[in-house]
């Protein structure tokens, strides 16, 4: 690990000021320290933001507002979250391990780095770690990689589970930087790799995530997260799906759907949502609609199975919306 300084701040203002002069925020540290130990992340100055009053979890009307520093475990265990926004709770509980969830903040979760193994290997080319060095995964081992939103420069999936749920639910984020506060859809936080895979998100220099707001809707409680993987815990998704349906008079009035493990960012599936709307919530309809998810999919040598697994995961997640968690 390279040497670094660590300073604590007691106000949002001070945090932003520090970050504007090139310092990096540290929350739970579960992504950042891990990667600093491997010298993939090399910040020289860290600002510890854990003392900032940004851990609150509250319901405002039908919206859920989650402070950026709320821990994954606390959000998932919150009774209002479980009752009113079960998809958020379920996607959090399916992520990482209990130890990690106790430490990890939701703000940090959204900004976690990719799990492509070559990203951590200094002796392998990786455009994301070292711009213009090449991509070891595209012609290498890529069973875990994306089939949607890839470029010839990078095909790593965005690993967050809760981000998939937030993108499905049209959540927004509230951030503050040197030039003031703004808020925008979580979906717009993530960039596609294109030919600049080292640029992952759209935060401006110095911007601090304050909170995530999840609007409530008639579909919020008919919403499930399905994460498919080879072991039951402590593994990233091969494929995951966050699905929410509003059903009335025997037809789907609104659908919200996003998938993980397949895209270079959490992948909203609006065409599938559209295909579901107005139809009966039954398996045949789900299957027909789910096939649309593969539009534009580009498998790599090792991940053809995702073409099969993705629609199946969507179908199953849609079915699960009608089942109790």
């Amino acid at each position, binding site marked *: *690990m*390279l040497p670094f300084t660590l300073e604590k701040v007691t106000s949002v203002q001070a945090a932003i000021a520090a970050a504007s002069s090139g310092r990096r925020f540290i929350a739970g540290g579960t992504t950042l320290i891990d990667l600093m130990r491997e*010298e993939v992340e090399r910040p020289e100055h860290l600002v510890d933001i854990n003392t900032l009053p940004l851990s609150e979890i509250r319901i405002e009307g039908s919206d859920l507002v989650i402070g950026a520093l709320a821990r994954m475990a606390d959000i998932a265990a919150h009774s209002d979250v479980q009752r009113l926004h079960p998809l958020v709770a379920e996607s959090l509980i399916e992520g990482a*391990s209990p130890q990690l969830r106790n430490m990890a903040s939701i703000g940090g979760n959204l900004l976690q780095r990719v*799990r492509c*193994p*070559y990203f*951590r*290997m*200094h*002796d*392998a080319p990786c455009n994301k770690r070292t711009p213009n060095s090449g991509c*070891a995964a595209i*012609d*290498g*081992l890529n069973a875990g990689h994306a089939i949607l939103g890839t470029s010839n420069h990078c095909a790593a999936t965005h690993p967050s589970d809760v981000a998939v749920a937030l993108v499905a639910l049209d959540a927004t984020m509230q951030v503050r930087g040197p030039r003031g506060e703004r808020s925008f859809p979580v979906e717009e936080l993530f960039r596609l790799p294109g030919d600049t895979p080292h640029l992952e998100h759209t935060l401006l220099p110095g911007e601090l995530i304050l909170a995530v707001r999840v609007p409530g809707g008639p579909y919020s409680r008919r919403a499930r997260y*399905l994460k*498919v*993987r*080879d*072991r*039951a*815990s*402590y*593994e*990233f998704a*091969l*494929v995951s799906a966050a699905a929410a349906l509003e059903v009335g008079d025997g037809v789907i009035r609104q659908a919200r759907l996003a998938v993980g493990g397949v895209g270079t960012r959490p992948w909203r599936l609006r065409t599938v949502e559209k295909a579901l709307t107005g139809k009966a919530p039954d398996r045949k309809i789900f299957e027909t609609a789910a096939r649309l998810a593969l539009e534009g999919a580009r498998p790599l040598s090792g991940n053809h*199975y995702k073409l*099969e*697994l993705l629609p*199946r*995961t969507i*179908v*199953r997640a849609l079915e699960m919306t009608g089942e109790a968690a």
Partner: protein
Amino acid sequence: MTTNVIGNPLPRVDGRAKVTGAARYAADFNQSGQVYAVIVAATVGLGRVTGIETAPVEKMPGVVAVITHRNAPRLPYAPHKSYIDPATGERLHVLQDDQVRFYGQPVAIVVADTLDQAERAAAALRISYTAERPLVDPADPKARPVVPEAGKQPDARLPADTARGNADRALADAPAKVDEIYEIARENHNPMEPHATVAAWNGNRLTLWSKSQFVVNEQAEIAAVFGVPPENVQVICPFIGGAFGTSLRTWPHVTLAAMAARQVGRPVKLVLTRKQMFFTTGHRPRTLQRMALGATADGKLTSIVHEGTGETSRYEEFMEALTSVTRFLYSTPNVRTRYRLLPLDIGTPNHMRGPGEASGVFALECAVDELSYKLGIDPIDLRRRNEPAIDEGENKPFSSRSLMKCHDLAAERFGWSRRSPQPRSMRDGRLLVGMGMASASYPAFHAPANARARLLPDGAAEIEVAASDMGPGTYTSMTQVAAETLGLPVERVRLSLGRSDYPPAPSHGGSWTMASVGSAIRAACIAVQEEAAKRPRDGRPVEATASAQRDPDAAARFSMHSFGAVFAEVAVDPDVGTIRLRRAVGAYGIGRVVNPRLARSQCIGGMIGGMGMALMERTVLDPRDGRPVNAHMADYLLPVNLDIPQLEAHFVEEIDPHVNALGVKGLGEIALVGMAPAIANAVFHATGKRVRSLPIRIEDVLTV
């Protein structure tokens, strides 16, 4: 005098020390003035080191030394081979030349005042290479199988070729046949405790606090490597945080630690990173096996052909008992086995829990299962129809064999009668449910061992032996043997393990510690009592050292193995392919059970290992340069608590007067053997899809 201590479910005598942190593991033995060494590993898979820029690194803060093949001492590396080393080939000589034989091979070590400084300096060291593409895939047509040198003699312990009858003709003529290829991925041991060595020289004497399952061999090997008399080397390892075989051999890092300590004239601590534990500390070799069975319509086996190949390195021929069980598990007049090695540009594999047997039995027990479906015979019944009266391979009676008793007990506890035979016929809601079973077997090995017993004036006893306890509970079970033999309560017996200056013991592996070391302790306890009886009570301790080995006559007359039966139930999600083990029941015939609590714990650990083998574990190498791409605990999947369902282990009553005076066989390995085929067979029963390649993952069962 007997106090019936043997057979009691005594809690671990070292449990308190372990949970309070009082137990000291290799890396806990910090020495004053100690410096830290970090290995720099090759980043190419085959080639030569052409340049190392040591100068800038030598100037970095805290750096004491940068040792490479250019400035490393030429070590004598006197010939040394124990039975734990491959019989053919020569161990990796570290930093003695510029050759890179596999990805991750040590090419330098950096020594610094603090670990941080050493890590940073190691990361900064620039090395250039000429590199070629290594051959790392045993399925690559360029991989050329060789006949293992040590298997060429017909009386070899692991013969390359064996035959009785004419298996190929009988197979061709058989009314029913299974002839398939089975594949098992490379696995790494992944114990919790990393390999670690603290090395300190005092003149020409070396002390190593080093994670080892075989301290006396580590002593002998390091003495040979450095050309010092063995008595000048002391190896200390009182506790081991899991090993599964990875610490049986003495790997290059031990030599490197000792080399660095001598070079810098200070004690050196070297702890491998998790990633480095995928490089130079052995692994279960990838295997490819052809298993062919011929049978009559009523399920009598007429032929078995078993051709197995395992990967090895270019510089050593690692052999394991891949085809051994095939020769005696079932009765059949015609058997042919063939064992070959595929030398690749990888580090040498080594024994991993259930070595050889676990892999060979997977192929055999899946093939027998396949045959049972072909013939429409219940798989237990099929095994019963082929139960041999004697070991037909050795032409000897078994000292004891409880295989069918194990099947009956496990089947009953499992509820096998509730299974409907048709594949894909059992459901639980949406989920496909499958039940599968398999036999297990592992040799009841025994090696000569020694122990010292000392009776103290206050009536307590001390026992010393150079064995190890990697976690099965050796401290506890050996204490029980000593207490029972001496007629003392267990609290009055103090057992010490893991020092090379104690009476020598065999490697702590191969499931022979209870039999071998237990017998030696028993002998030492008897000897010390005899000694005490001869001597007047003068208030001084009485001491005796004794050795024990298997009665050669019994060894010649009998075939000695443990047997077991494993039953597993899986649920497979027909939509998304997730495979979850729901429960498993094992029953084992292992002779006398010294401590049922520890035995159960051993079995459950082994079953979890078998579950990993079946459904999760594999080390994936990048074919371009041989690097393991998942050398990380988040990426190398092992079962986690949420995966592990209810596991039951039962023991059939088995009295074996021939194996040894204690009547014990081994347990550690057999607990893993059989689990993988039972699960694979259950997956077939659930889905109707036969997957012959481990681990079985979602993508394998997605489309049925």
